[in-house]
């Protein structure tokens, strides 16, 4: 399994240095990035995923194991992405959403079986043909993660993934997502404002500040 290495990352916005970072996320580890709005948390994720806005400039390397990925187009990086909204494509049904991201291996029947298995694993096997708009918030979150996992990512980025879930569902979904990430041994970077998310992730927490933030493996706040 791969580890995600952020090697001397420096992100500028114009003349202003937004953040600099040098760290490695181990397989199955969830590294939580926290800090006030505007310090560059989501910008860091956008850089890793390949969607950095032209308003920003970034230096440094992103490596998955020994492979440098920051020079590759977004679709070739194999980095899964979960936003605060599940973003299930509204023109496709649930199965269509899962098929969209699935690696094209095996026959159509085998792929359909994989989708069925994935949905069965979360008790949603009866929902394959459903309109995503008819699912509950928790069900959408599950389908969104299944879709990412079926695309066989080698790392995960979570951008405040639980912030729109209601309080009752939040703990349950959070637990379920972290469990899957660990099961698949995916190095994961999570941006959140919520201390409870960070606690539940159980990994290191990087706290970015409004001033130029310099962090390395030694500047971390360890959590048990």
């Amino acid at each position, binding site marked *: 399994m791969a580890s995600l290495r952020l090697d001397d990352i420096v992100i500028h916005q114009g003349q202003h240095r937004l953040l600099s970072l040098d760290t490695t996320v181990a397989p199955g580890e969830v590294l939580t990035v926290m800090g006030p709005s505007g310090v560059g948390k989501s910008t860091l994720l956008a850089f890793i995923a390949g969607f950095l806005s032209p308003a920003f400039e970034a230096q440094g390397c992103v490596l998955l194991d020994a492979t440098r990925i920051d020079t590759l187009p977004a679709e070739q990086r194999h980095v899964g992405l979960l936003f605060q909204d599940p*973003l299930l494509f509204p023109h496709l049904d649930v199965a269509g959403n899962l098929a969209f991201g699935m690696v094209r291996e095996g026959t159509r029947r085998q792929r359909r079986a994989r989708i069925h298995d994935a949905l069965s694993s979360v008790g949603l096997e009866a929902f394959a043909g459903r309109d995503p708009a008819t699912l509950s918030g928790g069900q959408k979150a599950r389908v969104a993660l299944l879709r990412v996992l079926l695309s066989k990512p080698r790392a995960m980025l979570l951008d405040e993934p639980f912030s729109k879930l209601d309080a009752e569902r939040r703990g349950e979904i959070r637990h379920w997502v972290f469990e899957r990430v660990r099961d698949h041994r995916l190095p994961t970077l999570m941006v959140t404002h919520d201390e409870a998310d960070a606690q539940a992730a159980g990994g290191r927490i990087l706290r970015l500040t409004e001033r130029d933030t310099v962090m390395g493996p030694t500047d971390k706040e360890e959590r048990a």
Partner: protein
Amino acid sequence: MTAGVAYRLVVGVLPWLTIALLSVPVVAGVLGALAPAFGWLPVLGGERLTLAPWRQLFAVPGIVDMARLSLVTGLVSAALSLGLVVLFLGSFLHTPLYRRIQRWLSPLLAVPHAAAAIGLAFLLAPSGWVVRGLSPWATGWAYPPDYAFPGDAWGLSLILGLVVKEVPFLLLMSLAALVQCQARERLSVARSLGYRPLTAFLKGVMPGLYPLLRLPLYAVIAFATSTVDVAMILGPTTPPPLAVAVVGWLNDPTLSMRFMASAGAMLQLLLTLTALLIWWTLERLVARVSRGWCRDGRRQCGDRWLAGMAWLAMRTVLGLMMAALAGLALWSVAGYWPFPAFLPWPPIAHNWLNAADDLVAPVWQSLGVALAATLVSVVLVLGALESETQRRRPMRPWAQLILYLPLLVPSVAFLFGLVMMQAQMGVRPGLGAVIIGHAVFVLPYVFLSLAESYRRLDPRWSQQARSLGAGPWRVFWRVRLPLLLTPLLTAAAVGFAVSIGQYLPTILLGAGRVVTVTTEAVSLASGGDRRLTAIYALLQLLLPALGFMLAMLVPRYVFRRRRDLLPGTD
């Protein structure tokens, strides 16, 4: 070549093709008209530069009246339309009445100018529906009265015809601009400070809204000062507005008249530029005068009666349009319809049956040209918008100006030049030239209709798809296009309607070889057969209506099981 490289190539090339389609015909056309205006047109023996065409032009009886008429009708109709739109928005923004009218905008915009003009002419003529409705019980008239409509010497009927079509256009342009200038927030702040709705709008929203409406408004002025089809139907004839006279000179069998026609086309261009300059000066003046007014702290300025006026004027404009179209339908099925009978009774299908054979060719040619021009425009617009999305930078001001170029330069000026160049280069007029000519006018409307939805599409949809391994082509076809299907089809319907309504490019670039329902309707309008004219005008209306119906029904069918994508569920 990988798919990614091919995508970047296509997306890189299409914006330049768009710019070329919008600018090359206009610039080349103006240059093509400029040279003959100074005597240079070797194909007709003009081989030395001279001012003779201009001397000939200024010797035409009534030339000053023609120019004055074009200038005045253009500026007055634009001012009335803007005034009405501003008063209406200021008084009724975000009210149920506004939302109701908003729903009707695209179909109203789709009504071709010529159809609306013919309908108005039938409605308000001495023997029209309005007079029939009032006679004899209110007027005592047993015979049609003696007044000039259409074709009054002041150009009032022309101004009315222009206002009826310009108001929906400016309202539609305002929709996107209101979002862009954060009208809702500005209005909330001003209202919370105690300003009455209209005053809050004029003092709080207009300073942000007007700059965004400036280019559409300039396009309105350019169109109104140089319209040919509407002026042929509603405008005075002795003398006619300048653009109508120029087209007459161009079609004159005496070929040497083309030098003078070129000078006339250039004069039309100067006239439109003068109108724009006058408007620009007035803008500055109003901005200076209103600066103090905006800061004087007065919370109202006759809001109630101005709102009443706006309500009445907007209802009148829309009512006129509806009644005009209903009148067309009646005339198309009218048998013997003596004055002052209000309805033709019994209605007959005879007119339609008689005309059926002659309708086939114009309908097919209209459909063919409109579909091809719309397809070309949609492809180019999608490429330009996709490129903008990829670059993640807003459109530059110069690109915006190019987008409006065909709408700002009087069509009679550059189309005329294109015809000259066509003749010079030995290119045969026909379907291809007409399709390109239509696309020049269709493309800006498709762009303006689609751009706002395209730009507002959440970029995270594409990011999500790409993080799932989809390349840019797949994201475009499988994610962006389906999500934008409804606005895309609406934009295509707008483009289709614009093409159906084109008169001048068809007449000039087709040289009579391409006959559409619009060219037939306009040429019939000057004749005496109201029934046949009504049939062609209705067809002009029905074809775009068909386009809009498809644009509405296709997404409803495709997304019948997708709640979030059903139109009207936002």
